[in-house]
């Protein structure tokens, strides 16, 4: 995060292959700053977990180097790395009580008995499980078990904490609660955290920075705001939050970033933003988020009309769906007061967006 702090962890040109042919991670360059909360986000098989496993020392890179505080750690075994780790399935030792689980890393460090019990107690209080010290992991709920796992990963003052989809096994409400809990811990402990998830909401709400992985490569890395507002390519645009993807052809280019695109499925010309030079006639994808499209009065300049195919009720808001096929449909998010209650499928509505909210990517190429 902070550009002044030297990087804590550096991945330099790291490759990982299990069979010598397919690279699970390829040419990875990544710097993690001290005390930052970095999330590796991506679909399964994108290389994010492998990256975490290499940092934890469970996997060795096929090529490249990993340094921690300036020292190469590739040859340092896991048990000497001093990184706390949290797993999706908690990985609590079932034959030990909660307190014994927490005492384990301290015992491994040959810490005295009385200090162990002090620190165990203190850390259990931090995760608000002080009364559960004598329970066995089997007697805990999922949320409690994961809090114990969290406590166990921080009780020995690790140099950083690695989390591999820690909330994946919890239900939605508990997840949201635990997200806040982890964020609070990060804040209180002032510690570097590397978090792996496939859940973009988690990535957006918790992280200082997010690195989006696909096909063993980082597609983009930046703050949640950058990733959401200015995705570098179509993959990031569609993976971070919801996005509409509309087929279009460039009709007019100007001196600035703003260009005109003809939307084939809606028969309308719209103003959009392109970070790259486009040629007239080029096929493009226009990506615009559901919350950035608004219903406008008839005749608004730069707006276009479309026929509603579906209205979906979401409680706090509504979603209007336009377009014939699912592939080229446009979904927008509206508040109840923005439209009249009498609106029905089949009705024509005028739609408008700010040109800077509609991004243009080359059709076909995912990484454009």
């Amino acid at each position: 995060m902070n550009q002044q702090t030297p990087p804590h962890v550096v991945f330099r040109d790291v490759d990982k292959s299990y069979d010598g042919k397919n690279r699970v991670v390829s040419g990875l360059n990544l710097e993690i700053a001290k005390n930052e909360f970095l999330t590796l986000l991506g679909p399964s098989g994108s290389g994010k977990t492998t990256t975490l496993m290499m940092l934890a020392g469970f996997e060795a890179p096929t090529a490249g180097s990993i340094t921690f505080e300036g020292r190469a750690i590739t040859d340092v075994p896991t048990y000497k790395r001093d990184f706390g780790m949290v797993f999706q399935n908690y990985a609590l030792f079932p034959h030990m009580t909660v307190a014994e689980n927490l005492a384990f890393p301290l015992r491994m460090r040959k810490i005295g008995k009385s200090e162990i019990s002090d620190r165990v107690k203190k850390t259990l209080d931090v995760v608000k499980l002080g009364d559960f010290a004598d329970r066995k992991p089997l007697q805990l709920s999922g949320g409690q078990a994961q809090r114990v796992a969290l406590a166990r990963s921080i009780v020995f003052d690790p140099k950083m904490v690695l989390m591999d989809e820690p909330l994946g096994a919890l239900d939605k409400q508990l997840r949201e609660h635990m997200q806040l809990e982890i964020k609070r811990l990060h804040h209180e402990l002032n510690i570097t955290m590397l978090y792996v998830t496939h859940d973009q909401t988690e990535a957006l709400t918790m992280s200082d920075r997010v690195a989006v992985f696909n096909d063993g490569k980082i597609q983009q890395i930046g703050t949640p705001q950058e990733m959401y507002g200015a995705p570098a390519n179509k993959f990031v645009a569609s993976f971070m939050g919801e996005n509409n993807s509309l087929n279009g052809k460039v009709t007019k280019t100007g001196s600035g970033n703003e260009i005109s695109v003809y939307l084939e499925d809606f028969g309308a010309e719209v103003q959009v933003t392109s970070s790259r030079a486009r040629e007239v006639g080029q096929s493009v994808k226009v990506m615009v988020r559901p919350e950035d499209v608004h219903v406008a009065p008839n005749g608004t300049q730069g707006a276009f009309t479309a026929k509603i195919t579906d209205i979906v009720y979401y409680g706090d808001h509504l979603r209007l769906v336009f377009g014939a096929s699912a592939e080229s449909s446009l979904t927008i998010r509206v508040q109840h007061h923005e439209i009249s209650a009498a609106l029905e499928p089949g009705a024509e509505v005028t739609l408008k967006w700010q040109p800077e909210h509609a991004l243009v990517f080359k059709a076909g190429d995912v990484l454009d």
Partner: protein
Amino acid sequence: MMRFAVPAFAILVLVFMISPIFVIFPLSFSSGSVLTLPVPGYSLQWYEDFFFSERWLSATKNSFIVGFATMFLAGILGTMAAFGINYSDFRGKKLILAALSLPMIVPLIVTATSMFLAFSIVGIANSLSGLVIAHTIIAAPYVVITVLASLQTFDMNLLRAALSLGAHPITAFREVVMPMIMPGVIAGAIFAFATSFDELVIAIFITGPGQFTLPRQMFAGLREFLSPTISAAAVIMVLLSFVLLFFTELVRQRGERLKASSNE
């Protein structure tokens, strides 16, 4: 009709399988001196003969020594082999697993012959240690199989967690892996003991009279003196098998409980 036929048939099968074992019980309490049914009367003379005969006691002692040594060696080797096979992924893993279970498939008489020849060369034929080595070779595969089975349900993340918490791999194995796979290890060890305890073919080949084990002594008794003492010995062995069965079941139940907790 079918409602009764199926259970009745099942019970018949069970009787068919088990009753021959029980024939030995009345025989062992016979007051007569030949192995025939019905028995003329009941007495404990054959048990007395067993417990006061130098020959039988020495055979029992040898059986226990070899049995426990085999259990110990096969337990350690089999557990290490199973963990190694389960943990690492390498080419030829299936081949090694097949090679390890070879002693279970190769006819015992073939194994016994080759061992006799091989052990003669290195000079450990006619010795208890030779018998222990031979029994370890045929018993270890059972340990490999039971430990592999319990490793199937072992969550490798537990090992990873232990390592990440600063445990040396050996400590992690001892403190985290062992308690979880203990039921498999113990079950395998009991199998190993049982394998050694009732093994005859190899014992015939590589023990002299000084190293006779119980089965070997019974075999000798059957051929040479046909004394009902062997029926007393047989009953003692059957009872011991029951004890082993009981232990295996106990361990299995404990294992189920731990498994349930690790899957939670």
